[in-house]
């Protein structure tokens, strides 16, 4: 109860003499994961928020709890006078395309989907070929593994999820091929695999992780928002020395409790690309051309090893770097649904 009252008026109430950019209202709509998913909603939010701060407006956000809420949330943002609206997730594609068609003066930034064949010009898709980055993580894991088994599992069988698992598997296979080894991937065989059936971090997800750990893996790669928490918990419970790989963000930074476990993270730099897209819009440089994050443009990548620096062979890291270059140069092709 007895803090110090502010002596100045609240910022923002002093109105009209700011530069024009400050009127550029930025907004964002999440999918059902919510903005605190430690994953792509959260990253996009951070990117948009950074842009909004820089522009000098308060970011408006709406969280969707159901499929039918996407369209109203997007429409409401238009009604709230938003100039740029970021919509997160392939699920919002239809709603976003609709709204973009209906509101040609508003800029839309759609994450994780191309927006279909008849994409309007005021819609910019941001896509990420995470398979490339996951390939590196797969190679790294295979080289790191002592037991000859690495594991992965997903939330639900969505392409944005399986693209990670696919790349990961290809990376492991490439390692086997190059080094004449036979490291196995548990939880994904390229077609089917282990899924928790949802994106809740709960006992169901933890049990899946435990079952994978039980097969003797020493690297675990959970793909799908918060379910890495279940993976981490399962690792801790097993008492074994198992490394965790993060998806989307660098877990080492977003969730410090993972610091001792996270080997690396397969990053989708959504914060950066969202920020850039919004800033471009604010500066009147918006273009509807799709952005595809790759290793080359650093839209995807793997995180530094942090605490695992000492545990990973320098030689192996050198190979990973070389592979990264080979992928960029097109010497190695990584298959994904985006092809």
């Amino acid at each position, binding site marked *: 109860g007895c803090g110090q009252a502010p002596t100045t008026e609240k910022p923002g109430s002093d109105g009209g003499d700011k530069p024009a950019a400050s009127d550029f209202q930025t907004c964002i709509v999440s999918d059902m994961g919510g903005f605190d998913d430690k994953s792509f909603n959260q990253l996009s939010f951070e990117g948009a928020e950074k842009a909004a701060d820089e522009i000098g407006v308060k970011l408006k956000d709406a969280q969707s709890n159901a499929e039918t809420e996407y369209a109203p949330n997007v429409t409401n943002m238009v009604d709230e006078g938003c100039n740029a609206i970021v919509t997160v997730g392939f699920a919002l594609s239809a709603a976003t395309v609709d709204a973009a068609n209906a509101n040609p003066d508003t800029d839309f930034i759609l994450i994780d989907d191309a927006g279909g064949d008849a994409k309007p010009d005021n819609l910019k898709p941001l896509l990420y070929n995470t398979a490339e980055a996951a390939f590196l993580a797969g190679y790294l894991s295979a080289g790191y593994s002592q037991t000859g088994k690495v594991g992965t599992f997903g939330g639900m069988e969505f392409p944005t999820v399986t693209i990670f698992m696919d790349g990961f598997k290809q990376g492991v296979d490439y390692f086997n091929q190059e080094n004449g080894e036979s490291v196995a991937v548990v939880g994904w065989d390229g077609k089917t695999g282990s899924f928790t059936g949802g994106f809740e971090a*709960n*006992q169901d997800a933890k049990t899946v992780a435990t*079952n994978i750990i039980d097969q003797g893996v020493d690297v675990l790669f959970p793909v799908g928002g918060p379910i890495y928490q279940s993976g981490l918990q399962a690792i801790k419970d097993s008492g074994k020395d198992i490394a965790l790989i993060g998806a989307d963000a660098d877990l080492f930074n977003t969730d410090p409790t993972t610091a001792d476990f996270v080997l690396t993270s397969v990053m989708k730099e959504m914060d950066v690309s969202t920020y850039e897209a919004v800033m471009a819009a604010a500066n009147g440089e918006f273009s509807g051309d799709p952005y595809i994050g790759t290793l080359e443009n650093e839209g995807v990548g793997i995180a530094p090893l942090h605490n695992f620096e000492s545990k990973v062979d320098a030689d192996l890291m050198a190979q990973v770097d070389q592979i990264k270059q080979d992928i960029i140069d097109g010497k190695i092709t990584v298959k994904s649904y985006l092809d």
Partner: protein
Amino acid sequence: MSVQTLQAEPRTIAVVSWKTPIILGVITVAVALLPLLAPRVGDSTFRFAAGSEILAVPDLTFPGTPAAWIGVLIGAAITVVAALRIASHRRVPLWLIALYAVALIFGFLSWAAAGSTGTLPMISLLSGALALATPLIFGALGGVIGERAGVVNIAIEAQLLAGAFCAAIVASITGTPWAGLIAAMVAGLLVALVLGVFAITYHVDQVIVGVVLNVLVIGITSFLFRQVLAPNQATLNTVEPFKRISIPVLSEIPVLGPILFRQTVIVYLMYVIVFVVWYGMYRTRWGLRMRAVGEHPQAADTVGINVLRTRYMNVLIAGAIAGMGGAFYTLVSVPRFNSEMTAGAGFIALAAVIFGKWDPIKATLAALLFGFATNLQSVLSVIGSPVPSQFMLMLPYIVTIFAVAGVVGRSRPPAADGQPYIKS
């Protein structure tokens, strides 16, 4: 007039119900179709060791498809035996059905695991089932107690969720999961109190109150999660979870030890509570009065039992127990709260209450069956199953429907379940 009295005792005619052999037959045929239509090559390995026992049981390896056929044949043989017993007007003993279940599960697993590089970890299959079942068991016990006292508890989901929520906050603030556990009980109890006020005092339809409480608690926890918890993740929503404790000696028992006695304290508490509730319900004054007010509240009233107070007390106890189940989510499974993280478990627990015929032990078994089916699909998908993941994920729900429709059938709730007691 000569008088003679009809002395004979009433007769009994054995009833012939072919339901059991028919269902056994149907399941046998269904499982037999798998190796028949989709034969798989390779061995299946069953692992019975957790990895750290002193006396480890060695792995067992069978050729997959033949082993599957052996399971099916044993199942078929038991089906025939069951049919013969029924034909000669004898009962099919429970152990025979249990044996049948084991044989067919063995057959199914052998088929599914054939040729896989992985092994079937029997220990983690069962201990995972136990973990999955734990919150359901707490929830189901809460349901059983409430309904035995005559108050339908649809609000199990709400109690679990509130428990998980409060456990996370309090454990984060205090830094000890024990405080979180107590907070979870209090949270469950508070939800139960609202249920009590509306259902017992104000005679509102208990189904209405339960359904609405679920919505209310989902709303409040999600609202507070986003407004309060998410911005203060580090201070309010980061839990130091309960650690696993291996009980000396007991945890070294082959197979069972690692399953039952390398668990967290909440699971041990569950063992105790299941026993206490069962014992209390049938052997103590508390249980006698609880069942009396649930079966015939007026009869209880006429012998001087305060029906309303008894119902309140039991509803509150039920809420506290269900709340404890909620704590499992945030103090054991994952060390933080996420909105709607119970994901419908309360409804599964409700199903376990009915499935278990309002009996604490049977409801526990029902929850365990559900946990087992869930983990079975998970293990199979990990070792590589030919079935699409979505169909695997359906397994526990299909198993439950079969069990309820085929084995359990009609279940009779306590006579006064759901009826408010109104005195003049």
